[in-house]
């Protein structure tokens, strides 16, 4: 089983050279720590920045420079600033290559639910509905099952949807899975020491297993 850092580390391997990437809050934020040195990547923060860098040193903290999670950040050489309309303009114009975000549920046809639990305080969708509606590639980082031990990979989402038919890949503490265009979770990799049987038991949606499933490699 992978911890959060290892999930982030595995997702980092998915990032293509010379790509623009938007990272959601939580595990996705950690992905930035594991980008291989030979990969050029530019992180977008949807409140208006391309070229987001790490958190600042104490002396460099600037209240006017934050990320979409409202954390203080820095800008890397080559960074660019813009307003919220241009920010979502570049998202909807599909200039952002990859979106990595968390989810409460994903369905076998790639629907995602991650913004609202009926009966609980609803905080809002923020930029998530825009990102999932338009990203060329969407990877979900999440736990395979919820706190009650119920699968989060389902035939259909039960929670209110954030977007439809958009998730391409899922990385959990147990496995890497692709969401096939025709529907179904195709098992690609197992976490070290996790059996296919364990993944089967934790997946309620249609699971497709073809041949030997390799263990994830971390180099």
């Amino acid at each position, binding site marked *: 089983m992978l911890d959060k850092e290892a999930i982030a580390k595995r997702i980092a391997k998915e990032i293509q050279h010379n790509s623009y990437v938007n990272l959601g809050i939580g595990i996705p934020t950690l992905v930035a720590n594991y980008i291989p040195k030979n990969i050029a990547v530019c992180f977008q923060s*949807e*409140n208006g*920045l391309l070229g987001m860098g790490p958190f600042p040193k104490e002396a460099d903290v600037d209240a*006017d420079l*934050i990320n979409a999670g409202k954390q*203080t950040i820095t800008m890397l050489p080559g960074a660019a600033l813009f307003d919220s309309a241009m920010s*979502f303009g570049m998202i909807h114009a599909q200039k952002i290559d990859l979106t990595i975000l968390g989810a409460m549920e994903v369905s076998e046809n790639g629907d995602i639910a991650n913004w609202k639990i009926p009966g609980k305080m609803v905080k809002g*969708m923020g930029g998530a509905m*825009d990102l999932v509606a338009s990203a060329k590639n969407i990877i979900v980082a999440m736990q395979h099952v919820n706190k009650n031990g119920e699968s989060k990979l389902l035939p259909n989402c039960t929670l209110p949807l954030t*977007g439809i038919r958009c998730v391409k890949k899922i990385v959990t503490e147990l496995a890497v899975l692709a969401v096939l265009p025709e529907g179904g979770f195709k098992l690609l990799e197992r976490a070290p020491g996790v059996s296919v049987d364990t993944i089967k038991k934790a997946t309620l949606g249609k699971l497709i297993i073809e041949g030997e499933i390799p263990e994830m490699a971390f180099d």
Partner: protein
Amino acid sequence: MTINKQVKNAEEAIADLKDGQTIMLGGFGLCGIPENCIAALVKKGVTNLTCISNNAGVDDFGIGLMLHQRQVKKMIASYVGENAEFERQLLSGELDVELIPQGTLAFRCMAAGYGMPAIFTPAGIGTEVANGKEIRNFNGKDYLLETAFNADFAIVKAWKGDTAGNLIFKATSRNFNTVMAMAGKITIAEVEELVEPGQLDPNQIHVPGVYIHRIFQGSNYEKRIEQKTISK
């Protein structure tokens, strides 16, 4: 002679803002919020306001200060966490809330500033956000029709401005401030530094003064940070 939009302070800028009006407030979280005008709105005590803003502040700062005085009837926002009083008023039914995707919020402001009645966006297709809205298919993909905002006032905060109303923003405090500045029937800009025309480089202007009706130099900016994160 140059057009002059300068007013004395926040009190003068909002003097004719009335109960029941719709106002836009710039900022993302607490970054780039019009602190001086919010304080003046609280002092003036206008009520039954509809507020359009990406967030609703925190309990004791930003729009949270107006919520405490029960000045807000309806909030249109994309994300409203970090605010216990907001949650209490929402659950008790005192406050009406419309949550919309962040890009839709930006584009509905932009549409108003560009004189466009509506925009099409794929955000919210297949979700409850699409309920009751017109959907059109372009090139095989569905889009929702979302109408331009219609706000009585837009209130924004810039880094620098001149008395002709030209504005320059710093870092990520630009966020919704530019598009909201363009979208108000009356737009008020408070700035950290107000200068005479000619002292700002025209190449650097983010919002031209034509969109601004009143401008003043603010004071005592707290610029509170919601989550101070530090690298070791």
